[in-house]
């Protein structure tokens, strides 16, 4: 139940971030950024999301929006930037596997809409 633990972590970060805000009665929407090759399965994260209300009542009835971030890398041999997944990790220009990942591992809380 990896995703459940992450939902609780998310609730904690948001609760701490909102601690300074006044007059918040409920969280309407949480917007997450999940990288294409992060270790999180968005589907399971969605399934576990309602459990956030167990940790913090502000989450009762909240909606979840997931923005997926594509995995992009820069080849260390030729400098080409390429999408990782469709090329199975190999540079399409020169065939090298040696690369720096520019994006795709994110698992961030982008923003929340509150009322």
């Amino acid at each position, binding site marked *: 139940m*990896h995703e459940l*633990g992450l939902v609780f972590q998310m609730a904690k*970060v948001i609760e701490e971030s909102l601690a300074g805000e006044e007059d918040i009665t409920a969280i309407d929407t949480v917007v997450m950024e999940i990288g294409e090759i992060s270790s999180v399965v968005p589907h399971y994260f969605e399934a576990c999301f309602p459990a956030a209300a167990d940790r913090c009542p502000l989450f009762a009835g909240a909606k979840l929006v997931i923005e997926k971030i594509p995995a992009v890398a820069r080849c260390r041999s030729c400098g080409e930037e390429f999408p990782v997944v469709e090329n199975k990790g190999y540079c399409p220009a020169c065939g090298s596997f040696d690369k720096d990942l520019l994006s795709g591992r994110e*698992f961030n*809380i982008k923003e929340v*809409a509150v*009322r």
Partner: protein
Amino acid sequence: MEFKVIEIKQGILSANDREAEGLRRELREKKTFLLNLMSSPGSGKTSTLMQTIPHLSPTLRIGVMEADIDSDVDARTVSATGAQVIQLHTGGMCHLDAEMTRQGLNELDLDALDLVILENVGNLVCPAEFDTGSVKNAVVLSVPEGDDKPLKYPLMFTVADVLLVNKIDAAACFDFDLEVFTQRVHTLRPGIPIFPISAKTGEGVEAWCNWLREQVRQWQET
């Protein structure tokens, strides 16, 4: 209905990472070294402890936290070594986070301990994501699991500070190539020490224990 959008822009694990940093600061003040021991189920974390504790207990005061989803089998086994042992139940969760680790540490008498070993839940995936507040992470990989595990679970080998290759006494029965394995590990984590051991025969355990004793000494001196 009026909405207000608040930017958070934080990694989901940022709260856990802060908690873990706080824990490490407290451990440094107490001069207690926390080792996070991770592996897949059945690699031999508990039997490695059963070999390690008697080697170190003449010079170090040792506590053990056994994390399991819901059993106390390992805690019973390890308590035979005479170390202070507590059982943590993760309640269905596949890993420990820094807060759960802190709850466990609160049950131990840290002033009377040089080394606390946290035996994490057997799992090569989730525990790698959560910083427990440990000073060092040790990963046990056993020979029957195969030398390709660093390719399949790269994050676990990236967060490791030391690797134990257990069941080395059974190497003749398996196609485990230690040289290939070492290369694969060092691609992810250049230069980390790798100790082949047998928790059954005791082979290699002394070298591993010497390394750990030295780590504890350095932590206590700084």
